[in-house]
């Protein structure tokens, strides 16, 4: 059974909890529990102290507001991935704390507003202050005389006085209403924000007699706006962090295909989007690729994107058809509620036959670059996921000619208000076809050709896939003698045996015997990196001939093998399934030679 790494999922779930508005203390407890669960053997805490094996700051607008510290039973190092995970959790706590603070401030503001004295002033036609009320004097703590004439300006904050003076004298000259927010020194000596409004007055004879104005203390409101702005910025950064942590750092290395990808966040000022891409090898030997775009921005989109990415990996393993997988993603998003939608393109590729089946839920069509020219794969289209409960998701199958490359991307690459979509798709095809370099060059040249160096308005994700041809005549493979390599060995053998025309039964039996031959080295290697095994296979005269060399010693099956019947059974399997088995045990290692007829073998 596979044990998936759940730290990304945990971070996404915590982010959603923070958004749901739970109490900060509760969120902190949950955050610490998540860390303890993902990093067993650690005791996380937000208490001050020392002796922490790892300490990570909780960010705040004016600097760190605390730290998450981890204590461990035994001394231990944390790898960059683990530190990044704890930092992600700290960022979420920081954002939630900031928001809670802003909300408390709002409460204080309301209370003040109810009791706030109104400040009133008047001027003569030359703009000189002739009267201020007690409310003003209570605010400033000055005397009546000190506020008359122009001297009221002395209380204005130096950074605001130019702005206040310029706008006031301009309005005065035009005898127009005036309004300004600025800082005025209050009775405690500190500057507070006020909003000041003045209107011109005329006598009954139509003569201009000066201004009358009122001012209000808006200090708490101003501060709250500031805090909210910082919270938004921080939320934006948390969403970015979340999204970055959820994107694969580098794509997995998948044997038989070359992958390259690019992710470009939207330009400064645009909200963080929910684009993602991923690639995985399926148990049946095909390669699954996915690209998606969650509608909406910020933390919520990033969290949903994380859920979809994890779901893709889980569903791709169990479902066979692209339409079924997209249908399951749809159910997942629909049960999440709250009108979240996403476009998704799922594609499964057979590396050996070039067969591609795919389903697009509202997503732009993948581009297939063949030696004969480019074409878009337009079939298998349905609505985005999360749009409706009952939807028929379609899929389409086609074949990639040898030497082709497939491109998946999100609409940030091709959506432009001023240009029709077909033109942009044409530009993309042209840029892709013009490139003659390797996969990395291809990605760079596409981005340059389509975006022209400008920042995109929406996130852009680009994933390029090129199957690499397999030699159908001989196999020569060396692998470390570790149990985890067995799956890789099977994948490699499956492709080779398919290519030489073996039936499913023959492929299984040959794969099994080779794995059993390698199994001895794997079971008895002295330590990691200590041993390796080499498999060479060739098909000649309708027979497959295999040599497996390792640096271990075969246990005598009739002796006392530490794994009981296992190894003995392995040897009898080999002898039962292959026609000529020859085992040579030498001091430095063992060589197993075996051969077997294949019913429909392709001649070398």
């Amino acid at each position, binding site marked *: 059974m*596979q044990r998936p790494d759940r730290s990304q999922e945990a971070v996404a779930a915590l982010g959603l909890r923070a958004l749901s508005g739970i109490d900060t203390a509760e969120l902190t407890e949950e955050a610490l529990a998540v860390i303890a669960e993902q990093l067993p053997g650690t005791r996380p805490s937000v208490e001050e102290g020392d002796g922490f094996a790892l300490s990570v700051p909780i960010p705040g607008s004016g600097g760190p507001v605390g730290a998450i510290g981890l204590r461990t039973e035994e001394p231990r190092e944390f790898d960059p991935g683990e530190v990044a995970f704890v930092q992600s959790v700290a960022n979420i706590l920081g954002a939630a704390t900031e928001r809670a603070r802003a909300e408390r401030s709002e409460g204080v503001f309301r209370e003040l507003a109810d009791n706030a004295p109104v400040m009133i002033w008047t001027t003569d036609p030359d703009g000189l202050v002739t009267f201020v009320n007690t409310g003003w004097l209570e605010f400033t703590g000055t005397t009546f005389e000190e506020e008359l004439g122009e001297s009221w300006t002395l209380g204005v904050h130096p950074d605001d006085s130019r702005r206040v003076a310029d706008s006031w004298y301009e309005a005065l000259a035009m005898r127009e209403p005036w309004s300004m927010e600025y800082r005025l020194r209050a009775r405690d000596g500190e500057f507070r924000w006020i909003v000041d409004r003045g209107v011109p007055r005329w006598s009954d004879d139509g003569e201009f007699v000066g201004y009358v104005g009122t001012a209000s203390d808006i200090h708490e409101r101003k501060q709250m706006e500031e805090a909210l702005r910082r919270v938004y910025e921080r939320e934006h950064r948390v969403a970015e962090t979340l999204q970055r942590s959820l994107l694969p750092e580098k794509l997995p290395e998948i044997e038989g295909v070359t992958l390259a990808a690019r992710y470009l966040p939207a330009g400064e000022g645009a909200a963080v989007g929910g684009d993602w891409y991923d690639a995985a090898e399926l148990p049946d030997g095909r390669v699954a690729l996915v690209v998606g775009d969650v509608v909406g921005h910020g933390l919520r989109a990033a969290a949903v994107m994380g859920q979809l990415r994890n779901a893709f990996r889980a569903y791709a393993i169990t479902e066979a058809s692209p339409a079924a997988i997209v249908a399951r993603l749809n159910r997942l998003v629909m049960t999440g509620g709250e009108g979240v939608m996403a476009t998704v393109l799922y594609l499964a590729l057979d590396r050996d036959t070039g067969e591609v089946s795919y389903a697009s839920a509202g997503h732009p069509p993948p581009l297939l670059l063949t030696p004969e020219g480019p074409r878009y794969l337009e079939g298998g289209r349905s609505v985005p996921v999360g749009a409706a409960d009952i939807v028929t998701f379609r899929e389409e199958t086609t074949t990639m000619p040898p030497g082709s490359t497939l491109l998946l991307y999100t609409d940030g690459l091709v959506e432009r208000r001023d240009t029709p979509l077909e033109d942009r798709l044409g530009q993309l095809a042209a840029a892709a076809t013009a490139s003659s370099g390797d996969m990395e060059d291809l990605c760079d040249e596409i981005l340059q050709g389509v975006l022209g160096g400008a920042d995109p308005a929406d996130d852009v994700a680009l994933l390029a896939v090129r199957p690499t041809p397999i030699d159908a005549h001989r196999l020569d493979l060396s692998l470390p003698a570790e*149990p*985890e390599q067995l799956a890789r060995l099977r994948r490699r053998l499956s492709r080779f045996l398919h290519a030489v025309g073996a039936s499913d039964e023959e492929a299984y*039996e040959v794969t099994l015997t080779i794995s059993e031959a390698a199994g001895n080295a794997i079971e008895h290697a002295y330590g990691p990196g200590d041993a390796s095994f080499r498999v060479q296979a060739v098909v000649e005269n309708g027979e497959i001939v295999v040599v497996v060399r390792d640096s271990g010693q075969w246990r005598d099956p009739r002796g006392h093998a530490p794994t009981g*019947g*296992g190894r003995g059974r392995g040897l009898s*399997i080999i002898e039962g399934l292959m026609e000529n088995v020859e085992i040579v045990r030498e001091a430095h290692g063992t060589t197993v030679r075996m051969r077997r007829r294949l019913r429909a073998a392709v001649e070398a």
Partner: protein
Amino acid sequence: MSTSAEIAIEREGGTVVARLNGEVDMTNASYVGDELTRAVPNDAVGLVIDLSGTRYLDSAAIELLFELARRLQRRRQQLRLALPSDSPLRRVLLLTDIASAAPVYDSVREALSDG
């Protein structure tokens, strides 16, 4: 890239039916064995393992089937295997004589209906 297997458990009267999908080799054999043992309560008559969705078994996996048969027998429960006649695994399983420890049937239905 690692080995993965999925187990889906159902109850058919007194018998537990476990669908074993995916691949089982030495890296996950004992885990799968524990899960299958855990899936059979004391009051069950036996366990049928549906191997129709199993793509790969190695000697460690086959060993676990023998071990599982022994564990169940200690509790007076029987292990049966269901494997379509055209499964690529058939010849290998017969070669190992697993049928002597756990009878092999062509389908789950046949495994359940045989007395």
